[in-house]
């Protein structure tokens, strides 16, 4: 069993070092002698993007199943052991990854390493567990989508904006797929994707790096690498004309959600696009907020963001409207604001503002052990190198006013957008 040291970086006055085990397992350690806690996270390179039609929601359903029994630990024992330490644990599935977080006192690190290595390799998957978690996930879907107007709108946007890329289906999956997933399919998914060479362990907090290396090697070293399928990059065809859909829901507040074809996190234009979104929607002095919430009082909320995905994502502008106002009114104002961004350079003051906002956001993410581990794990899994986190943050300071105008012109066109409107029941056009 041997480690290969790969790369290092410094941040927050601490060293961050990445190693690789002989079976492909990645390990990133950020030891902080002053931290009274440890965040131990396992990032798997599988998300909803890796699913196939008819089995959407598999990655997320499987995330739930990972908390059930293994050959060594009975049902419920994983959570019980973590909770006994005073710590807690959770997990999340998104389009490009699934990650598992354990936050424990430093003295319990060995326990967590054993538990995580165990469930990576020895999970027991049987029908009772599948059926129980299937119901829980179905409930979760009802809560987050079927009974939630914004969740519903988001899901419909993905379905409308993408035609072939797997970002078109929701990470939680379509209900019919959740209901029809079989035990064989679940087991196959586990064998395919849950392997050391498809995982990066991230350890941040009150630990000794050498001790972590020994501990992880001793528990993961005997695990075999798997033949991880290489998914061909699917390029969504260019959008040539606007797409729109409307729905009626029992709400007095209409919704307007627009998705513009954007870029991937690793694209050179992502920083400029990120700052453009901040100009539009970060803070109460942002352009969309001023126009929609303050000046015209059309909206209750407005948001603008470009997600940090591996493949080209949708730039989203979403707004919840005040009673009595219509989505077309919001769209007219949004179009006017976008036209201004495209037509005129932003001021130096505005540029400084959004750089300051980005800087504050960057450091806010790195304040605690969980946040640090999450940032490192996300960039390592999505872009293949945790150092991209710092490179991209650094590049934000080099984005110019011309860059922002250029990306606004390239991406905020009507032909490039998909729109979902939610109207109050009885107000459908």
């Amino acid at each position, binding site marked *: 069993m041997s480690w290969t040291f790969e790369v290092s970086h410094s941040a927050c006055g601490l060293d961050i070092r990445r190693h690789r085990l002989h079976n492909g397992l990645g390990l990133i350690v950020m030891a902080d002698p002053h931290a009274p806690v440890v965040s131990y996270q396992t990032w798997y390179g599988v998300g909803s993007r890796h699913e196939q039609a008819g089995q959407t929601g598999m990655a997320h359903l499987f995330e739930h199943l990972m908390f059930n029994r293994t050959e060594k630990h009975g049902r419920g024992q994983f959570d019980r052991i973590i909770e006994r330490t005073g710590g807690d644990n959770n997990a999340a599935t998104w389009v490009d990854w699934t990650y598992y977080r354990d936050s424990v006192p430093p003295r319990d690190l060995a326990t967590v390493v054993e538990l995580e290595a165990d469930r990576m390799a020895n999970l027991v998957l049987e029908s009772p567990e599948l059926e129980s978690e299937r119901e829980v996930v179905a409930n979760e879907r009802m809560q987050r989508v*079927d009974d939630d107007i914004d969740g519903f709108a988001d899901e419909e946007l993905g379905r409308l904006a993408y035609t072939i890329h797997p970002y078109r289906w929701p990470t939680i999956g379509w209900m019919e797929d959740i209901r029809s997933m079989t035990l064989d399919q679940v087991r196959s998914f586990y064998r395919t994707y849950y392997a050391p060479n498809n995982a990066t362990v991230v350890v941040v907090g009150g630990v000794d790096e050498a001790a972590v290396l020994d501990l992880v090697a001793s528990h993961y070293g005997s695990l075999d690498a798997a033949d991880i399928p290489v998914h061909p990059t699917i390029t969504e065809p260019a959008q040539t004309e606007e797409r729109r859909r409307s729905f009626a829901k029992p709400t007095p507040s209409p919704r307007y959600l627009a998705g513009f074809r954007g870029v991937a996190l690793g694209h050179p234009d992502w920083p400029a696009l990120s700052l453009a979104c901040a100009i539009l929607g970060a803070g109460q002095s942002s352009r969309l907020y001023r126009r929609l919430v303050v000046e015209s009082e059309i909206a209750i909320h407005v948001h603008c963001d470009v997600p940090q995905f591996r493949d080209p994502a949708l730039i989203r502008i979403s707004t919840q409207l005040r009673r009595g106002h219509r989505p077309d009114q919001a769209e007219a104002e949004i179009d006017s604001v976008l036209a201004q961004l495209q037509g005129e350079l932003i001021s130096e003051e505005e540029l400084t503002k959004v750089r300051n906002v980005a800087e504050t956001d960057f450091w806010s993410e790195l304040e605690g052990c969980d946040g640090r581990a999450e940032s490192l794990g996300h960039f390592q899994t999505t872009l293949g190198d945790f150092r991209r986190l710092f490179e991209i943050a650094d590049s934000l300071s080099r984005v110019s006013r011309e860059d922002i105008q250029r990306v606004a012109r390239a991406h905020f066109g009507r032909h490039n957008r998909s729109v979902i409107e939610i109207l109050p029941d009885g107000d459908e056009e």
Partner: protein
Amino acid sequence: MSKLIFEHGETTPLCSFTAAVPRGAVYDPDQLEGLTRHAAELACRGAGDLDREKLDAAIDFLGGSIDVEVDRDWIALSATCLARNLDRTAELACSILADPRFEASEHEALIRESLSDLDDVRDDDSSLADRHFQRLVAPGHRYGRTTLGTDQSLERLPLERARTHHRLLWDGSQMIVGVAGAVSQSRADRLVDQLTSAASAKGEQPGEPLPITPTPAGRRIYLIDKPERSQCQLVLGHVAPRYGTPDYTALMPLETTFGGMFTSRLMQQVRVERGWSYGAGCRMMRARSPYWFRIVTAPTREVAVPALSLILDMYRDIASNGIAADELEFAVGHITGSLPFMRATARQRMRLALRHRLLDLPDDFPLGLGAELEALDTDTVTRAARQCLTPDDLCIVMVATADEVVPELERAGLAPTEIIPYDSY
């Protein structure tokens, strides 16, 4: 006691400060629910020489934030910024405290905005259930009134009353200041002086807080009728002991065991065993006065009534029989072991101490809890449970579609006390 709670930390170039006073929405006058929140928000809509647009631009330019928090017992002005921008951020915060403009146009705009916020609350089933639960659990209780306001109270809010209310709330002699992050002790001391001077001593109360009322006798079921619900939001509860009292401490392991962890009884029975809901839990809420004990879950419509029946049975059981010795030991270990996580960063330590000061407890109260919890035995916990938990004097709020749920509720002997249209409050 020093006005300053200070925690230094250099892991990031950020700093945070919070100026708080132990005066909150319990001082909303009768018929003017929402006044405290309105006054606090309005103060941030223009101060000194800066109208709202210029003030927002000035704050955003620094990359940070200045926000107001309104609780029933306290209000706070909190800021986060890059350390290099602390001076200007402090200046803006002091301006909000000392010299808010309270312009009529902003006052009227904020009222319109708050009315829209009510729509937002009604759109979200969890918030909707909570809003109705608060007003129904113990009518007349000081924590039962909405901090946001109602359609009627918002329309009535007078500008001059908001101005006076703001002035009385922000009393420098009552202020506590928390500072954390990349800032020196001397700068923190100066910040205290700046903020307390900005809110001069007033020497008078902003009014009389509401009383504390008991939970009415009997079980009351309120169905908040909303169309097309595939799930049902359930909130059950009653008035509980005050945080910091021996009874509250004795009930903490029971709260954890019943619904305070993933492996709690509620979570295991409702979610894990039956798959009936994504989550199920309970909490004894913390305030300066006795607040609620609440159980919350969101079962699908088809199993809402069996879920309610199950939870009622489980609650009766634990209220009568308490918890087992091994459950007590586990819960105490979990609670005491979780403390380092609440104090892992400078900002967390500052906020935790500040919160306890506002609750009229020592800053380091959580640190002493461990010994008290470890001294508990099952008899003490059971005694507290029988005395303080009232499964038969209970308020139950369900957000569901009445036509689909009421017949089954009636068959189960759980007929609603009242059916309330979801948009009526």
